[in-house]
Every structure is written in structure tokens, then in C-alpha cells.
């Protein structure tokens, strides 16, 4: 068991190192002096020289690489030009904001997806199953940013029910209850839109694995012993069908982060995605590299967690059958 988890952790570290290396390579492949990546054009030559020395750009490439690795892994990402403060503090805030959005999306899509999937499985090969399937295909084909614009123009601009962006109202009075309520109002549209494709995937997954489990022998046996149909569904099948869901966490993370980049930008949600895109336009390279790294790290850790969860959930791997 330790061996399995140890192997996974080791592998995650390798990936992180690979990502760092690749980033380093990309920086050095980019046109121009790597220093120009870190330095704004308007700064005078003398300062440039100092920064170059500080960055160790005179040293051999290998040494630069090692220094860079050390700085990066200890969380010293440098100073953000556009925010004029330490990258780590910018990122800290943004990560927290993104986390609020993504966690809610994850939970919401899980609830809706599991319910829909169960319903579709119970009613499989009927009209309602087919309509759910078509609906999912439709969800999956929607460009989120466009849907966001359409819903904003309806619910925010026309009807004025929901805010069109940001995390909180500019003038906000009242206590914690009002604040929470305000946050929820800001979350509804982005969270709903970001959930749609995931609802589609989860529903399909739950439906598929439920039908798989339902087709298996022990469910038939249980049915033969006279357990009522619904009870069988919930007692046996559900447990076995839902356990593999934990692996989806790892699968979802890259998509979730990618999706949030887009949605955050439409809704001016001050999370990682928005910070990154703004950084791109500001040519704020320390910030770009750092967000890139954090995103990669998140995905790697997410995969690691889902692997470990899966390990506890699936007796086959625990016994060392498949690895």
C-alpha cells in the first residue's frame, strides 16, 4: 500500500519537475533576452543590468536552471509588474476566489449529474432517457462564454435579477448574512454555466456504470431473492456505481480550471483565470509563469488525491491486482 502511494507521489513530483523544466525551456526559447521577460520595457539600462545580475543571467544555463528551480519551488515567484506586489500574494487571493467558484461547481454538477444519471439508468431505453441524452449533448455543445453573455443580457441587463459580474456588490451594507447572500447571487450564473458540461459527463458516467452494475450477477441474485426493485438499486448498485466517480475528480480538474479561465473573464470574477489573462495583456511574465505553475500543481495534486481515494475505494488495487 505504501508502495503504491509512494510510487504515485514520486510520479507526481516527476511531473511537476517536468512542467517546471518545460516552462524554463519555453522562456528561453522565446524571442529576445529572458531578462526582457522579467523586465518592463520602460526601465533604464542600469536597472536592467542589476536585475540581470540578480537573476543570474550571466551564469551558465544549467546553473540558471537550478537557481530558477529553487526560487520557484520555494514559492518565490518574483514581483508582479501590473499588480506591483509579490506574485505570491496576488496568486494567493486569486486562488481562493477560484476555489470558491470551482468547489461550488463541482458539488452542484455532482448532485445534478448523479440524480440525472440515476434517473436515466432506471428509465434506460425509454423516451425520458433519450431526451436526457439529447439534452446532455446540447449542454456539451454550448460555448460557455456565449451562453454567459446571453444569460447576462437576459437576467442582468433586461430583468436586473442577478449581477452581471464581480464577486460582490460595490456598495454592500449589512452583516454576514447579507454578505453571504450577495456572494451567492454573484455565484449563480457563473456556477450554473460552468457546471453544464460537467453535468453532461457525470450523468453519462453514472448512467453507464449503473447499467453495468445492474447487469451484473449479484444484482440479479438479489432480485431473485425478492428484494424490491428500488431497494436493490439503492443498496447495491448505487454504491458500486458511484465509487468510480472519485476518479473523475482528477479528470475534471484540468477542464474545470480551463473552464474557469473563460467564465471568470466573462464575469470579471477575480480568480486565477482572470488574473492570468490580464497578466498576458500586461506582459506580466512573472505572474503568468506562476499561475501556469500553480495550475499544473493543482492538477497534479488533484490527480494524486483521486488516485489515492480510488486506491481506498477499489479493493482490486488494494490487493495489488492492478496498479
Amino acid at each position, binding site marked *: 500500500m505504501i508502495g503504491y502511494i509512494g510510487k504515485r507521489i514520486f510520479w507526481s513530483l516527476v511531473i511537476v519537475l517536468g512542467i517546471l523544466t518545460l516552462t524554463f525551456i519555453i522562456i528561453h526559447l522565446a*524571442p529576445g533576452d529572458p531578462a526582457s521577460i522579467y523586465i518592463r520595457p520602460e526601465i533604464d539600462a542600469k536597472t536592467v543590468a542589476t536585475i540581470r545580475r540578480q537573476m543570474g543571467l550571466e551564469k551558465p544555463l544549467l546553473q540558471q536552471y537550478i537557481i530558477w528551480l529553487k526560487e520557484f519551488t520555494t514559492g518565490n515567484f518574483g514581483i508582479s509588474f501590473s499588480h506591483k506586489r509579490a506574485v505570491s500574494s496576488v496568486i494567493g487571493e486569486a486562488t481562493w476566489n477560484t476555489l470558491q467558484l470551482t468547489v461550488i461547481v463541482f458539488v452542484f454538477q455532482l448532485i445534478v449529474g448523479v440524480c440525472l444519471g440515476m434517473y436515466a439508468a432506471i428509465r434506460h431505453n425509454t423516451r425520458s432517457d433519450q431526451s436526457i441524452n439529447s439534452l446532455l449533448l446540447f449542454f456539451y*455543445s454550448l*460555448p460557455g462564454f456565449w*451562453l454567459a453573455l446571453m444569460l447576462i443580457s437576459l437576467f442582468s441587463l433586461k430583468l436586473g435579477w442577478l449581477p452581471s459580474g464581480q464577486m460582490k456588490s460595490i456598495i454592500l451594507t449589512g452583516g454576514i448574512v447579507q454578505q453571504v447572500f450577495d456572494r451567492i447571487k454573484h455565484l449563480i450564473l457563473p456556477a450554473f454555466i460552468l457546471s453544464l458540461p460537467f453535468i453532461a459527463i457525470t450523468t453519462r458516467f453514472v448512467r453507464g456504470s449503473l447499467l453495468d452494475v445492474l447487469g451484473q450477477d449479484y444484482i440479479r441474485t438479489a432480485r431473485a431473492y425478492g428484494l424490491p426493485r428500488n431497494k436493490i438499486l439503492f443498496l447495491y448498485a448505487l454504491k458500486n456505481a458511484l465509487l468510480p466517480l472519485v476518479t473523475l475528480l482528477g479528470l475534471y480538474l484540468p477542464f474545470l*480550471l480551463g473552464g474557469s479561465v473563460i467564465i471568470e473573464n466573462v464575469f470579471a470574477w477575480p480568480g486565477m483565470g482572470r488574473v492570468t489573462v490580464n497578466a498576458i495583456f500586461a506582459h506580466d511574465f512573472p505572474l503568468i509563469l506562476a499561475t*501556469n505553475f500553480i495550475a499544473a500543481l493543482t*492538477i497534479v495534486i488533484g490527480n494524486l488525491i483521486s488516485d489515492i481515494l480510488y486506491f481506498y475505494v477499489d479493493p482490486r488495487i488494494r490487493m495489488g491486482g492492478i496498479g
Partner: protein
Amino acid sequence: MMWAGRTKETVFFKRRFWRQFKKQKPALICLSFILLLGIATTFSAYLTGYQPDVQGNLVTERYQKPSLQHYFGTDKFGRDLFSRVLYGGRISLTIALSVVLLALSIGLMYGMIAGYYGGIVDAVMMRFLDFWLAFPAIFLIMTVVALFRPNPFILIVLLSVTSWMETARLVRAEVLSLKSREFVLAAKGLGISDMQVLLKHILPNSLNPIFVSAPLKVGEMILLESALSFLGIGVQPPMASWGSIINDGRDVLLQAWWVAAIPGLFIVLTVLSFNLIGEGLRESMGIRK
């Protein structure tokens, strides 16, 4: 990709396939729509009297409602939106199709080599694939786009190198199961060279899952490209794609809803069509999820 699966039985012939595919009504309708769209975007110059990037009279021709003169209205520069949507569609479709072609080729080669050689080659290649899968594609794209000036070529390359992995996995699994099949042994037994066996017997029989996944991938790529262009880190002006046109309409959602709404509708219809074609292909090839 999520919807694709592996072939149970690799029997698939043109004749039988057409017989089956003809029964898939929604897929057929979608296919005709895509073909029509392809023709319309390619020959857009002959369909409208306007040019996508020529500005109109900034006083009289800004933000005109859809009318018989401008089917889809005009934007803030008085440009005809109909011709812009067709032009943007050409760019979007070209990019998406090129990406899929490239990604599938990379995935095909990668999967074939890994599956065919097996052993240590396979193990190393699959490890690298896992690594690549763990890489957050959109962030990589954003980093590169930030460093280099984005152009369609870079965009195509970037999107391709971040989306070949599922194909590689599918192909590898197919090749792995095919290479121990008796008909492959039989071909080897005849004295045909390894390369020929791979190209003549293994490759054609491992293509089915790729066929099925191709339309789905095109849809995915249209969505991704339009999102990037919408954010301003994809297709750059003066070029336009559906995503960047939607961005043009972002600030005038109420005054000129058509600027954002219409290209978006085109995205939805196109992606939906590709997905339904994919479903139809899967049904007619008898591939289970």
C-alpha cells in the same frame, strides 16, 4: 472524446457502414448542414455583396438591425455581419479541422508505435503521455501565446500538441489487441514484412475509434478556439473567428444583440452537428461506450 469508445469487433466495411449510417437520420441532417456550411463559408464572397473587413459609413451604417440588406445586421464599424460570420466560420472551421487532422495523426503514430513495439518503448511512451495529460493545456497555450505573438499557425500547433493523447491511447489499445490476432499472425506467416503488416492489416483495422472520435474532436476544438479568440488570445484582428466576433458584441448586448448572438448560434449549431455526427458514426459502427 468523452463519448468515444473502443471497437468490440473490428469488422467494418464501406458497404455495410453506409447501409447503417443511412439509417441515422439526425446524423445525416447534421452532415448536410456541415457540408452546406462548409460550402457557404468557402464561397462566402459569392454569397454576399459585402466584404467582411470593409468598414461601412460610421454614421449611417453602425449597428444596423438584421434586414434584407444586411441579413445579420452590422457591427460598430458598419461591417456586414453576415459576411463576417461566414468569414469567421471559415477561419474557425479551418483551424478546428487542421487541429483535428494534426492531433489525430500524432495520436495515430504515437499509439501505433507504442502498441506495436510494446515493452519498454511502450512503457516509456505511456509515461510521457500521462505526463502530457497532467499538463494544463489552456495554461500552456496562454503562456506560449503571451510569449509569442499569436497567429493561426501557432494556434493550430498548440491546440494539436495538447489534444492528441486520447487518440494515442485508443489506437494503442486497438493495436495491442490486433497484433496478437490470428489474421495478423497469418499475414506475418506469409512472409510479409513487419512494416507492411502494420500498414496493411493493423492500421486499417484500428481506425474505427478514430473515425468516431474525429467529429467530436472537431466540435471540442471549435469550442476551445472560439473561447481563446473571445478572450483575445486566439485569432487576432484583422482576422476574425466566431469567438472574436462574439467579443465584438460583448459590450452592446442590449443595443445590438445580434453581434454576439448570431455567431454564437452558429457555434452551437456547428458543434452540435459534429457531436451528432459522431453519435451517428458510433451507432452505425456498433461501437459501445
